């Protein structure tokens, strides 16, 4: 900024640096490298995600395959061998499932539900937010009023309601197969408003900017303007909300499962595991509750930490 080109014809010299090097030099990488807690959080998150993805190969047992279970393995304490002669690093639960394996598989369910729900909320919220912010007027008013109503009800309540509707609509014998998708939609519908609000705000700011005007002068289709011009410029906040929303979705899934309206107990998520484990809090089998609970908190915490960091790294002013 401070250098004054000497002649009007002065060519600008571009230093040829690879994209990778530029990425390494970017603010975001720098702030990442200087935040030890973020590094730890990302490693924990990565480990958990890898654990979830590779559960079928890593887990010592397959707790989702009832045929391999032996009820007589039940309630084996951590780091010991059951009557049936199987070893359980983190103990086994009331059904003789290996707690370590159920956690790995449960993480899969929790992460899948969390990710898909967040994605759903994101797509819905971002689209509505873009439209509301760009078109404005009555459409905007209607969308935002709906968002207000949604925000005034805690997500859990909304998810409970949607769950209720789905239960009523889907024939009973298909409910279990659909349970995961119902959860995803329920949590997604409970969380879209945050995205919509933020994106709407950002869109209203971007819409005013001259680059949008420049495109409009050309007569570019508003849909294209939204998609190609505005959308990329609102990804920052969306990413941040997405991350924090993911943590929230994971907790919501757990809470719903805890309230007994989650995934089927034969394919438990972390929340279902906690609900089951909670029954054994006083009976001495603490590991059935404790390990899934720790995993859930670790997951939510590390994702939250990442979101927090991302928020600061992308925009120090962002709330």
């Amino acid at each position, binding site marked *: 900024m401070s250098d004054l080109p000497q002649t009007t014809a002065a060519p600008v010299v571009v230093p040829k640096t690879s994209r990778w090097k530029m990425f390494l030099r970017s603010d975001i990488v720098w702030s990442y490298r200087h935040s030890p*807690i973020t590094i730890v959080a990302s490693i924990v998150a990565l480990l958990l995600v890898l654990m979830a993805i590779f559960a079928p190969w890593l887990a010592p047992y397959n707790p989702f395959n009832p045929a391999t279970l032996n009820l007589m393995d039940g309630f084996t304490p951590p780091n010991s061998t059951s009557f049936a002669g199987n070893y359980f690093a983190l103990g086994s639960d009331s059904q003789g499932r290996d707690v370590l394996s159920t956690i790995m598989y449960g993480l899969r369910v929790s992460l899948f539900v969390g990710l898909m729900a967040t994605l759903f909320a994101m797509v819905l919220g971002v689209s509505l937010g873009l439209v509301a912010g760009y078109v404005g007027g009555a459409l905007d008013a209607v969308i935002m*009023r709906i968002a*207000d*109503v949604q*925000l*005034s*009800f*805690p997500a*859990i*309540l909304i998810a*409970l*309601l949607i769950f*209720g*509707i789905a*239960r*009523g*609509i889907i024939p009973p014998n298909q409910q279990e197969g659909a349970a995961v998708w119902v959860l995803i939609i329920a949590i997604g519908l409970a969380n879209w408003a945050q995205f919509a609000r933020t994106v709407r705000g950002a869109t209203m700011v971007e819409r005013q900017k001259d680059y949008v005007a420049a495109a409009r002068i050309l007569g570019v289709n508003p849909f294209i303007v939204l998609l190609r011009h505005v959308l990329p410029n609102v990804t920052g906040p969306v990413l941040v909300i997405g991350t924090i929303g993911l*943590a*929230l979705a994971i*907790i919501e899934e*757990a*809470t719903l499962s*805890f*309230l007994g309206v989650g995934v089927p107990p034969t394919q438990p998520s972390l*929340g279902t595991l*906690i609900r089951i484990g*909670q029954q054994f*809090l*006083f009976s001495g089998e603490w590991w059935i509750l404790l390990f899934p*609970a720790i995993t*859930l*908190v670790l997951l*939510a*915490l590390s994702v*939250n*930490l990442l979101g*927090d960091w991302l928020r600061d790294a992308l925009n120090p*002013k962002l*709330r």
Partner: protein
Amino acid sequence: MLAFIARRLFQSVIVMLVVAFIAFLVFRYVGDPLANLLSQDANQADYDAARQRLGLDQPFYIQFFHFVGNALQGQFGTSYRLQQPVSQLILERLPATIELAVASSIIALIGGVGLGIYSALRPRAISTGFIMTASLIGVSLPTFLIGIGLIYIFAVELKWLPSFGRGEVVQIGWWRTGLLTSSGLRSLILPAITLSLFQLTLIMRLVRAEMLEVMRTDYIRFAKARGLSKRAINFGHALKNTMVPVITITGLQLGSVIAFAIITETVFQWPGVGSLFVNSVAAVDVPVMAAYLVFVALVFVVINLIVDILYFIVDPRLRDGAKSGR
């Protein structure tokens, strides 16, 4: 300002209608209330008769019409499960929820605003880093886990505090309060903390973010340049300006405390509307569920209105500028 409030009220009515409709719609599908109402050996004829008596055989929009009409008169029918007028049930349970919600709101507000200010004023202190990390743990811990943990530690292991219920209550008029007895107050501690933690964290982070933002503004810089004392800048100027956005979000958050109480009340067996709702959901007690939803919407609407009025008090720009579009 009156016009503004009138407009808000109009919006609120729409919101309430939408909520009522959703409430109604949803609960028609949740399950069959009759399964619980009739005894084990009731037969099909009994079922049909009961369905007819309850009006469950009528078309859905007619049922909705009845519902709204009665709701306007404060009539939500009789609970299928508890066989009392729903409005009476809710009124009976309301004091418990309100006391819990208010107590935890106070904790959340004082703690949240205090910690938020502290961490905003000392952005680089180690204690702030600690608070910020701890606050993330606060939002990462599901409420039910916090409740279970607190009960286990403070009631079962240490035996310091009661694990459930409201303790001794005193009746004042129709209000049944637990605030006047020591056992009532002791019973309040754990649930109030459980319920407040999440909100506290949110408020704290919000206050911090807003305050940091405000601290960067020109008028704060100018206030410094004018030589005002640190106190005047931090608490007079920065805090007051922080409050404007904080009021909205906090208002909404506190509104959702009441609804959030569902989980806390369930874990602590707190005899409020939240546990009433959860028990009703399990029993498909439609009138109670519908009334509860409408009640939550009402709370939201009222809080929104209070927030708007607070806005007027705090922000002079709104008082006369509510109309100018610039």
